[in-house]
């Protein structure tokens, strides 16, 4: 009897917490959409900021964030997948690989501001990239790398060994087997897992403050060595560095709305991609 009661209580608590989370996410999205949508106009999306950001549009911040996401993906995805392939397909368990794994999980727990400082030290100053898209993307890539490696390894583990054996038995080399008969099936899982990291990169402020973000730069970048504005940092700037907070509220919510759409957009694209690949590769 008492057991049944505990069961009911536990179930109730879990139910409540689940719906609380859903409710909070829903409320945040609802709030940003309601307050942000009215601020959205063609001009807001396509114009340069004016009057130190209190008027005009946010085009350079949108473009900047877009470039940073692309740069981060272009750097972190190949590196992360390559690391996962090494760890899961080639390396044998040893002290060395245990150290690597320890390093990866430690990296995952490092606060983002530390990545920002590290990126400034290494990419901006030591390697001389300056505050630039390149330095910012590299910094964000370092931050999301652990997520991508772990997700990619999980995806590789999910491919049955019978796929590897079947291919090897036909005379395929190890690399042919991985490239043609393991990676294609693991890719959907790799992408899904990587989305979280990439979405996080799009929304982070701390890693980009010292490595790429410009407070106000009303022009579009011309090369990867240019500074850019970025949505999260622009939002931070609008919310903290502006004197008349009430009149600027619509600008803030509008920017938050656009950031939200981009982050969710990245997720949706990846999910569609995954489900298409997955339908093809089901066993």
């Amino acid at each position, binding site marked *: 009897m008492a057991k049944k009661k505990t069961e009911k209580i536990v179930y109730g608590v879990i139910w409540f917490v689940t719906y609380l989370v859903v409710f909070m996410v829903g409320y945040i999205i609802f709030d940003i959409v309601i307050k942000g949508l009215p601020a959205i106009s063609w001009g807001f999306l396509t114009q340069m900021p004016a009057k130190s950001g209190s008027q005009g549009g946010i085009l350079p911040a949108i473009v900047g964030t877009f470039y940073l996401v692309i740069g981060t993906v272009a750097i972190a995805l190949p590196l992360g997948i390559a690391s996962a392939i090494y760890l899961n397909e080639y390396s044998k368990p040893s002290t060395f690989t245990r150290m690597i794994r320890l390093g990866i999980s430690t990296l995952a727990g490092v606060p983002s501001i530390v990545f920002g400082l590290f990126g400034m030290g290494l990419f901006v100053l030591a390697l001389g990239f300056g505050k630039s898209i390149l330095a910012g993307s590299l910094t964000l890539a370092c931050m999301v790398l652990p997520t991508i490696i772990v997700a990619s390894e999980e995806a590789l583990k999910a491919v049955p060994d019978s796929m590897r054996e079947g291919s090897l*038995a*036909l005379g395929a080399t190890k690399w042919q087997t991985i490239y043609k008969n393991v990676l294609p099936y693991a890719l959907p899982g790799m992408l899904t897992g990587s989305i979280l990291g990439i979405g996080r990169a799009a929304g982070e402020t701390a890693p980009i403050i010292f490595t790429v973000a410009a407070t106000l730069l009303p022009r579009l970048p011309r090369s990867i060595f240019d500074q850019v504005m970025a949505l999260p940092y622009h939002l931070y700037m609008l919310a903290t560095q502006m004197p008349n907070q009430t009149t600027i509220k619509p600008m803030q919510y509008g920017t938050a709305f656009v950031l939200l759409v981009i982050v969710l957009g990245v997720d949706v694209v990846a999910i569609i991609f995954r489900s298409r690949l997955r339908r093809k590769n089901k066993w």
Partner: protein
Amino acid sequence: MVMIGNQTPPQIDEPEIEIDVQNLDFYYGKHQALHDICMSVPKGMVTALIGPSGCGKSTFLRTLNRMNDIIGGTRVEGKIVIQSKDIYAPNIDVVMLRKRVGMVFQKPNPFPKSIFENVAYGPRIHGIKNRAQLQEIVERSLVRAAIWDEVKDRLHISGLELSGGQQQRLCIARALAVDPDILLMDEPASALDPRSTQRIEDLIAELRGDYTIVIVTHNMQQAARVSDYTAFFYEGHLIEFGKTERIFTKPNNKQTEDYITGRFG
């Protein structure tokens, strides 16, 4: 040249040897799974490996195309000579070996690709790019594996959409597509229903003669039906090897007899 004297004349039924196993020991780490196996597998015939579960049939089969290489900590001693080459010699190209020695697994493992791509996988790996040539190979292999009529109108569907028995025949077609001389089969019908099993056995009879087939089975009736030669393994030892007919009617060894008559295993 004329030979006179006590030269033994070639016997009519002395078969040509395709695989010659000499004093083979196999170890998983410290555990010795095969002990001093000596066996000559005749060319173009079906050789069945029987014995109770865990006696080393799969291990032995997988030494023949060096599939055990991919398991860490394994070790081979002795010699396996296939087509007069020691396959464990340092200069052996494992890729070429596995092209000559195809394998079909216990659980059908079609790739999550189309039927066409499943069969074309091997030829593509070995450098055939020409579409017409691939098509020709795919059709020939599927015909050979007795599944062409069932799939010829839907080569683009996933191999996973086929039934278990069809999947296994697809896997056989895939193995045939790289044009091997030897076909290793590890309990190819153990996961299948009786009708599909029948079709696989018919297929083995079809392929006999053109390929040297080594098949593991735990089903003694199956061994008796499909094979010309039978090898009985017990606890990592090859207890008896000979013509299937003789092994099943008058085995030389007490253990073989006990196993065949169902007294153990």
